[in-house]
């Protein structure tokens, strides 16, 4: 297996790290710190991302509620996750960290509100 170059995003340095599979695990070259090694191995084996989007909210002063997953989820599930998010419609009031969808797509991550929103009557 040939080596793969991954840009580490753990910090602003952005090390270009090369990673190659070997008998004892992975051979990692080019990282300036331990976090770089952890990052590239996860990025190669199971890349994960926090997903953020919005859901429709009624009876509040603005019409979209920002939401996020409370844990990173597998990168390949991002679009399925967005599809689930787009099915949701809720009503104010909402508190920050309220669970909007629990255990979304069986990922063990909850979709939570990213802010609080009061109930208001729009004029």
């Amino acid at each position, binding site marked *: 297996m040939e080596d793969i170059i991954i840009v580490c*995003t753990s910090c602003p340095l*952005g090390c270009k790290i090369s990673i190659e599979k070997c008998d004892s695990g992975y051979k990692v070259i080019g990282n300036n710190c331990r976090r770089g090694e952890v990052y590239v191995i996860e990025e190669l084996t199971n890349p994960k991302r*926090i997903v953020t*989007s919005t859901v429709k909210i009624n009876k509040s002063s603005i*019409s979209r509620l920002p939401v996020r997953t409370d844990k990173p989820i597998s990168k390949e599930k991002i679009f399925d996750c*967005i599809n689930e998010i787009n099915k949701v419609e809720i009503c104010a009031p909402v508190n920050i960290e309220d669970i909007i969808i629990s255990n979304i797509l069986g990922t063990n991550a909850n979709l939570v509100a990213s*802010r609080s929103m009061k109930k208001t009557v729009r004029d």
Partner: protein
Amino acid sequence: MITMKIYDVVIIGGGPAGLAAAFEAKKYGAKEVLIIERNEELGGILQQCIHNGFGIHQFREELTGPEYAERFINKVKKANIECMLNTMVLGINKDKVITIISKNEGYISIKGKAIILSMGCRERTREALMIPGTRPSGIFTAGTAQRFINIEGYMVGKKVFILGSGDIGLIMARRLTLEGAEVVGVAEILPYSCGLNRNIEQCLKDFDIPLLLQHTVIEVKGRERLEGVVVVEVDDKKKPLYKTKEFYKCDTLLLSVGLIPENELSIQVGVEIDGRTKGPIVNESMETSVDGVFACGNVVHVHDLVDYVTDEGRLAGKGAIRYLNNLFNKANKGDYITTECGKGVKYIIPQRLRMEHLNEWVMLHLRTDKNYDDVEIQIVIQGDIIKTIKKSKLSPSEMIRLRIPSDLIVNREIDNIKVEINERS
């Protein structure tokens, strides 16, 4: 006659800079603190930045924009700081009388013993770039599109081209993709992106969105709605190479081509502006050239991380308190040293340092003029190098913070301190 209400500190703009400044001013003893905000809620642009990545330095965790904002809004509310929302400042005069207008209050004047300017930035537009062509609908600044999608719930288009690889442009490339649009490309006139590394990786590469370096849009086509853009490669002097002309079919063009600090009020009150940052010239306490008028956040210079905006807001809030307590010696007003941009340095904040008001250390914020590999940042006083910091990578998109111990500069007969970028010796 109605008497004019007088506040200790009036903060203009309730974004992250203003929130931090207000809280700090109240915490250190100001009694009457007022935040004036033109939007219907506090938080500023953070409320539409629904992605994560905020707060790494302040909280050691990655928050979304609204989460970061809510933490500071809660602090401000708990501290009983007065806020006027949906309120526009029309003008400030030399006596620090602020004229405002709002639905609740009407047209009134108030006075701030100290004023903190934290109005932030606005985006550069198509007109600022003078892109030729027709004037169809479908051309947005990236931040406006972000507001439409994330707050108002309107999608801006189906097939999108993005000009400019600043962070907002990159973030919007991902956001639009997740919302079902196709992003056909992101063009950047420079040979490198102006966005953070992580955004290039997670916003473009994750979704296979092409980044066209040294490319720009030279023409817009379409009558009612945008039908496409003409993109060319440019040479090192940013001159279009017309042979490389290529047509990109799209119904939407987003512009992420820079921010301009919003300083109309600052100029009106007589604040000196730095031509390099397009923001007020400030001293170590974030005080502008006008006594008792402070400034912080993106109105001073464009930041890449909100965490540093918060720090700057705190500094301005503390500065305002020192001013109110008469700690700033008026007689020595003219006594300051300047921070000078040496080779490779685009700007430095603060521009002025008053020796007697330095704490144990002073933080200099600067940006380089281009990318550098394996260089040294040198701090020079009267030809002597007093500090050298080795850096393997420097980029204009990442603000550099240099913590300078004050004992290196105080008690010396000097008039400036210079920062320059040199090849590693």
